[in-house]
């Protein structure tokens, strides 16, 4: 087992290296001169040339990459062109809202989708199953922002239950924090619920067909126990896996949701940085998100050891 963990840990290194290369190339190979952008609209050619040298943009691309990586390894993502502060500080400032939104969404999604998927599998082929499958396809098909506008219009404007926008830090009090998160999280969780419910249902159907379920039922165990303790426990691996895949989906959703609900998180930062051609910030944020994605999937792989002791490595 420890060997598996060690091997899995080591396998993330090449992935991270390739991510770094891709992120670096993504921006270096695009048109547009970072120096000209940084210099502002009234800069002369000489000033731009000076800035180019100070940024190290005059060096060969391999050297630039080396410098860049050595900075990253020291935890230095450079300074934002547009926001004029360190990218690491910027990410730190924007982390809380995104983290709150993402974890809240995840909690809602899992709490809603897993029971739905279990029930659908239990009543496989019945009306509930059909309805859920219908909903899940629908959930994949509605653009997040349309859903957001509709929810805001109904829940906030017509019913007046929740704020229409904004984010309150958890330090400003728990209730305001929660109130501001509910609507964005629900918006974002729909596609996630659709995805997890589908996978839960599918893996439950498979698990329910196994021999040990028949054995458990034959032993006269209560149906709820059979469903949860036996079937769901055995269907856990694909469910946990799909949550990992969904992290990428979640990051995409965060970008849109934060824009509509005016949440100053990392998603908004990405859009702002891209529109402002803020190269260090774009690189920093993409690198950060990729890192999170790799780590989450690492943790999920490692968690198989817990969820499915039968897996031998």
């Amino acid at each position, binding site marked *: 087992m420890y060997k598996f963990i060690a091997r899995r840990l080591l396998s993330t290194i090449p992935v991270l290296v390739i991510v770094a290369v891709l992120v670096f190339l993504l921006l270096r190979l695009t048109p*547009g001169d970072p120096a000209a*952008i940084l210099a502002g609209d009234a800069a002369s050619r000489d000033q731009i040339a000076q800035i180019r040298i100070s940024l190290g943009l005059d060096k060969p691309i391999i050297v630039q990459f080396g410098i860049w990586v050595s900075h990253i390894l020291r935890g230095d993502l450079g300074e934002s062109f547009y926001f*004029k502060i360190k990218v690491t500080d910027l990410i730190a400032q*924007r982390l809380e809202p995104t983290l709150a939104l993402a974890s809240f969404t995840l909690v809602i999604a899992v709490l809603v989708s897993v029971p739905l998927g279990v029930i659908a599998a239990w009543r496989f082929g019945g009306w509930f199953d059909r309805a859920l499958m219908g909903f899940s396809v629908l959930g994949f098909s509605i653009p997040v922002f349309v859903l957001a506008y509709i929810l805001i219009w109904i829940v906030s404007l017509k019913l007046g239950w929740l704020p*229409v*926008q904004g984010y309150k830090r958890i330090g400003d009090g*728990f209730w*305001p924090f929660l109130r501001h998160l509910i609507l964005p999280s629900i918006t974002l969780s729909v596609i996630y619920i659709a995805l997890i419910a589908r996978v839960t249902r599918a893996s439950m159907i498979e698990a329910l067909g196994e021999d040990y379920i028949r054995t458990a039922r034959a032993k006269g165990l209560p149906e709820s126990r059979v469903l949860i303790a036996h079937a769901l426990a055995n269907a856990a691996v694909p469910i946990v896996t799909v949550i990992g895949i969904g992290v990428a989906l979640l990051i995409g959703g965060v970008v849109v949701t934060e824009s509509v609900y005016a949440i*100053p998180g990392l998603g908004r930062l990405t859009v702002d940085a891209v529109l*402002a051609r803020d190269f260090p910030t774009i690189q920093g944020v993409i690198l950060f998100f990729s890192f999170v994605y790799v780590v989450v999937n690492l943790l999920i792989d490692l968690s198989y050891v817990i969820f499915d002791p039968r897996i031998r490595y």
Partner: protein
Amino acid sequence: MISFRRIAVLAAAFAAMGASPGAFAQGKVLRVVPHSNLSILDPIWTTAYMSRNHGYMIYDTLFGTDAKARIKPQMVDTWTMSKDGKTWTFKLRTGLAFHDGAPVTSEDVVASLKRWGRRDALGQQLMTFVEEMETPAPDTFVLKLKEPCGFVLEALGKPSSNVPFIMPKRVAETDPFKQIDDYTGSGPYIFKKDEFKPGDRAVYIKNTKYVPRKEPASGTTGGKRVYVDRVEWNLALRDPQSQVNALAKGEVDILERPAFESYGQLKEIKGVEVFNRDPMGFQYMCRFNALHPPFDKAAVRRAALAAFRQEAFLQAQVGVKEYYHTCPSMFTCNTPYATTAGSEIMAKSNMRKARELLKASGYDGTPVVLMKPTDLAAIQKLPDVAAQLMRQAGFKVDLQAMDWQTLVSRRAKKDPPSQGGWNMFCTAWVAPDIWSPLSNAALDTKGEKASWFGWPDDPKIEQLKAQFARELDLGKRKKLAAEIQAEAFAYGTHAPLGEYINPVALRTGITGLVVGPGDFYWNVKKN
């Protein structure tokens, strides 16, 4: 029972938290949605209007411009001009102090003017007249000029970018091409550096030691009295529909520039009002690049001018009838130098004439590369209208969409359009930036040496402007301004496209908004 009690305790705890502990301590908070993001905190380094507005929060100025475009003293108490017009002596009023408690002295003033004079266009012109700036006493400074200059007060009281804000000497000595990092001013608000989160929010608290002038506030002049304890700029709320929703629900107090499409909704919402704080408003213009075909020929530029019906632009872009009007003057209307000279080509614009002019100009079908910004709602429809009108007149148009950042860096390129250059773009100016021939960047006609993009080359305009700068008599200046405009229309420097206002939307409890060419938050009361 125990679990019940525990729930009750928890609920009470939530309720207590819900009361937001900060609310009592903060007092009155004005929550503003500014028109753009605040990223640069040095209003001398950049001309960005957000940075200018930030400057007005925390700095004070020597002179100001009132709501009727008259220059009035602000930090200055009294001043005199010598008979030969070459020595100006200014005395500061008493009670001026920076946020750190230090008094404002003439040395701070001179250092600030010097830095501003390196960056600002009008400041640079003023500095060509200045021989020396002296500080005979802590409350007195003297401008010694080489020759009489007609726009000393106009420059010092300049209401819009770059505004000669007065900073402490240690800050003003920063290299003008580097940004400052010490935000100590002497204005009515103090910047909370520790609460500033770019792209999220900027916070200002009341400067309790600020001594306002006695006169009522008007424009950037008069008593800057502060009636709220804290102003919060919400920099995260950018989606126009979300802005309207937030105002409707009272989650914010003021929207600086609602999208034009939002006014219909805003007028229907109870508890929300629309108020125009800038009666002089903005002027739209489309700019030609005089370096490259087809707009290197005056005849072609004038054919485009003839096609540009201002009403078409204004109706599509602004749409709300009472918020726009056509205006033939390049110096904006209802201002001292407003004139109709030379504007017939546009005022009587019609398609048939445009087609004739274009045919006569020998236009060979070279496509016009027209740059369109996709992320600036206030101007992004202009290029579409221009394209349609020009196509109707017989032009070939290549409408290229890009974000404003890209447009800004591309418009600085003098290369031909095929090599990354351009032929035309459209933009908007606040009236004070263009109401004088000296400050109107579009009338810098020094060819490739011109400071603004498009590089028209017309020595006659430059010569008239030089005369204008030296002229002290208002009547003669007006005449010169009219001549400059007539020549500019004949040359086809740019196309003025009419004027608009972009009123603020605010909660009904908010009163006392100052009228003027900027977004100022003194004098505002919140019930």
